[in-house]
């Protein structure tokens, strides 16, 4: 039987407990009789498995992964990952078997009881190899997982300026400080799952599909989630194994990822290259853009790796009014861990491609990059040839140039970069909320789950505004499929928009009920009654928003980049909680700097991961980072509560501004993140 001694208050989001060490993270959950799971992983990037003896392996558990979560695409059935590799392994770190011990030390010891015979094969490591060599999976014609295009092909115009370049973002590990983890506990026909996640519903849907469970026989509950940044939104093989093992052994099963496992086996982001060609006039106007985008999907198509190709292609003209556009996007399979979303998930890549080209055009024309940008935007709304709708860009950009003090900065130093972008939040298909009013208290659950953003702050504020009750009687609880029938997840800059709208809708439904029952509404009438409303509020409209960044740098003799200024000016819609907004932006700016200067996942020619510790992977330290200047514009959205997205803005805007500043300071054209000191002093 499952015994959980967490009290109701322990299930709420409450950031004040963390300073006392009283959080409720998944590894803090110790159910009686727990078995600890360790996973035996492939040491080869590609090999034929000749035999596996011992442990729980694919001869018993034949399940496959399910495509759920951010960018899910169930149509990519050819390359869906098996929970356990059977005939072949396809990346270093791919699960081959699992063992179970009474504690984590014994479980680790038991890994030695599993014997696997491999016949190593030559792996496909790079995207170029993927295009050149036969498919890594039998049943496919090539290593192209997805090919899609946006816009219509057009004949190269006879433009005075034609520029072409190839630009790339290295893969980046998401590296939340809390690694992934799960506790699965099966008893009396019910599978209870506690997991560190952005979406309890994705995990539930995934387990239902993968293990062919009845949806009413599984409940997924979120623990305090120690960061995620995209990587905890969907299903992973270990979750299926732990759930299966709990059902098999009738005991709770816990699996907690090591950092080395995180780096080899958790879906990293980025890993995208774009070949971009622009056609322009001498006054700086870009009349056409062509692009060829390659996404390194890794060994299997789980979701975002398939989705990214078209998504990036769609955003490639950025916030600019470019009349002609045609972009082909391809995701290719390689013998590396499957790609996943990392804060931005396609948006930073698309912005990197267009912003690097606009800066190149400015250099070619010897124009100020701000003037080139101004030449390509309008006072009117614009629908790009690639299918992206944008609001009038010029008024925002002009205020951004002023607010970021660009004209002053360029007079002071040469190493200045300014970027401009449009954020496309993942609002579709909406989000769910449930509100229960009982005993004078208001309890709220959301379909998508906070993991550090402080959703409890906007939940309290919106309930206060809609229902007139004090904020201190409103509690937001962690995600729980037992409390919400359906829901989406917290990613893609969507929560303030979609979850906020769901809270507003649920409040209004309750308010209407109070009015129907009493003839009028008052908070006292509400709190003296009992109400329970669930809503799934759909979102279909485009809620894009603009942002701009400025960076200034100096470069030391050894190629070390010293960031002097890193500033942001973003339209966040109505800021529901200013402190939380600023915190999100500062944290995202740090990740933008990380991607630009420090972070990358590197593999050698055998597909072995070289960056296998958190410091190798380059997570920035306090001493690496400057203080940030954050300014916000509050142009309300058309939603009742006025919110727009913001979580991903800094990872879109910072890399492009910073790399330009480094380019100016070093005098070297820069095409790739991360920028290394070696590259700058060569």
């Amino acid at each position, binding site marked *: 039987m499952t015994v959980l001694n967490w009290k109701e208050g322990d299930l709420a989001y409450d950031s004040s407990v963390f300073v006392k060490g009283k959080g409720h993270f998944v590894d803090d959950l110790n159910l009686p009789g727990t078995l600890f799971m360790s996973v035996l992983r492939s040491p080869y990037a590609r090999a034929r498995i000749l035999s596996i003896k011992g442990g729980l392996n694919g001869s018993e558990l034949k399940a496959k992964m399910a495509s759920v979560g951010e960018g899910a695409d169930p149509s990519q059935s050819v390359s869906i990952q098996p929970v356990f590799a059977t005939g072949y392994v396809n990346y270093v770190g791919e699960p081959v078997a699992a063992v179970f011990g009474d504690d984590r030390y014994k479980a680790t010891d038991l890994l030695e009881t599993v014997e696997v015979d491999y016949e190593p094969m030559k792996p496909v490591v790079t995207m170029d190899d993927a295009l050149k060599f036969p498919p890594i999976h039998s049943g496919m014609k090539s290593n192209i997982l997805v090919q899609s295009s946006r816009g219509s092909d057009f004949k190269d115009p006879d433009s005075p300026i034609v520029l072409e370049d190839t630009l790339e973002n290295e893969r980046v590990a998401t590296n939340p400080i*809390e690694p992934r983890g799960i506790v699965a506990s099966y008893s009396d026909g019910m599978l209870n799952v506690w997991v560190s996640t952005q979406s309890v519903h994705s995990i539930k849907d995934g387990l239902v599909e993968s293990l062919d469970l009845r949806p009413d026989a599984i409940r997924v509950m979120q623990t305090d989630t120690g960061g995620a940044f995209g990587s905890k939104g969907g299903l992973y093989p270990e979750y299926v194994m732990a759930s299966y093992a709990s059902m098999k052994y009738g005991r709770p099963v816990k699996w907690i990822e090591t950092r080395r496992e995180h780096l080899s086996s958790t879906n990293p982001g980025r890993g995208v290259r774009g070949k971009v060609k622009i056609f322009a006039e001498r006054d700086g106007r870009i009349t056409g853009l062509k692009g060829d985008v390659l996404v390194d999907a890794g060994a299997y198509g789980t979701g975002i790796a398939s989705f990214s190709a078209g998504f990036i292609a769609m955003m490639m003209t950025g916030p600019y009014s470019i009349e002609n556009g045609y972009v082909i996007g391809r995701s290719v399979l390689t013998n590396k861990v499957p790609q996943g979303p990392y804060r931005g998930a396609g948006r930073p890549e698309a912005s990197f491609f267009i912003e690097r080209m606009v800066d190149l055009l400015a250099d070619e024309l010897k124009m100020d990059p701000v003037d080139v940008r101004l030449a390509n935007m309008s006072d009117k709304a614009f629908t790009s040839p690639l299918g992206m709708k944008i609001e009038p860009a010029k008024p925002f950009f002009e205020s951004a140039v002023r607010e970021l003090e660009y004209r002053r900065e360029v007079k002071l130093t040469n190493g200045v970069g300014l970027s401009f972008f449009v954020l496309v939040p993942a609002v579709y298909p909406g989000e769910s909320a449930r509100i229960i009013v009982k005993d004078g208290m208001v309890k709220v659950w959301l379909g998508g789950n906070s993991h550090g953003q402080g959703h409890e702050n906007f939940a309290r504020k919106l309930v206060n505004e809609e229902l007139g009750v004090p904020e201190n009687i409103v509690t937001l609880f962690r995600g729980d499929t037992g409390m919400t029938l359906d829901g989406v997840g917290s990613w893609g800059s969507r929560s303030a928009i979609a979850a906020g709208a769901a809270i507003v809708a649920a409040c209004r439904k309750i308010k209407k009920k109070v009015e129907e029952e009493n003839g009028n509404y008052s908070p006292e009438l509400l709190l003296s009654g009992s109400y329970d409303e669930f809503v799934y509020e759909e979102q279909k409209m485009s809620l894009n928003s603009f942002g701009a960044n400025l960076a200034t740098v100096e470069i030391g003799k050894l190629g070390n980049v010293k960031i002097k200024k890193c500033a942001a000016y973003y339209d966040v819609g109505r800021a529901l909680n200013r402190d939380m907004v600023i*915190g999100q932006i500062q944290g995202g700016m740090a990740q933008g700097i990380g991607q630009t200067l420090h972070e990358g996942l590197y593999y050698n020619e055998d597909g072995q991961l070289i960056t296998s510790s958190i410091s190798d992977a380059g997570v920035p330290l306090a001493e690496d980072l400057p203080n940030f200047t954050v300014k916000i514009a509050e142009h309300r959205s058309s939603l009742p509560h006025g919110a727009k997205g913001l979580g991903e803005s800094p990872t879109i805007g910072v890399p492009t501004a910073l790399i330009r500043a480094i380019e100016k300071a070093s005098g070297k054209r820069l095409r790739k993140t991360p920028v290394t000191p070696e590259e700058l002093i060569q």
Partner: protein
Amino acid sequence: MSMSKIKLTINGKEIDAEVEPRKLLVHFLREDMGLTGTHVGCDTSNCGACTVLLNGKAVKSCTMLVVQADGREVTTIEGISSGDEMHPLQRAFIQKHGLQCGYCTSGMILTSFWLLSKNKNPTEEEIRKAISGNLCRCTGYQSIVESVKYGAQLLKEEQKGEQEIRVR
């Protein structure tokens, strides 16, 4: 596996225990003592989520065996407040939003605690240097630096208040 007998002080309490010699201090604290405020983040001493004080000095408990703590004093995040009264650093981290997901927080506070025990008026640069063995992926560190500065101020005010009481 043969067990080792150890005696150590944890948060002011004397503890006698028999442990596997291979057991890490962090696992002893979390699993045997139930002190789950100390976290494991990277397993390699880089991230500092597992930071505790050993005889007053900040150490990474994920790369230290519990037998190495034999005869010593360990302080965890659970041991720095006095009863319900939070330590000034804890209050400062709440007020200045020095955390988002909360996973690095215990380690950040204990490293800062150690810093303030040696240096009551750290500059921003000194704070950044001191916490560079503690990784935060959420905040970008700025609010943490502000929290430590504010915590230092609160601590000084508190100690000044205590001195005045003693003088009286």
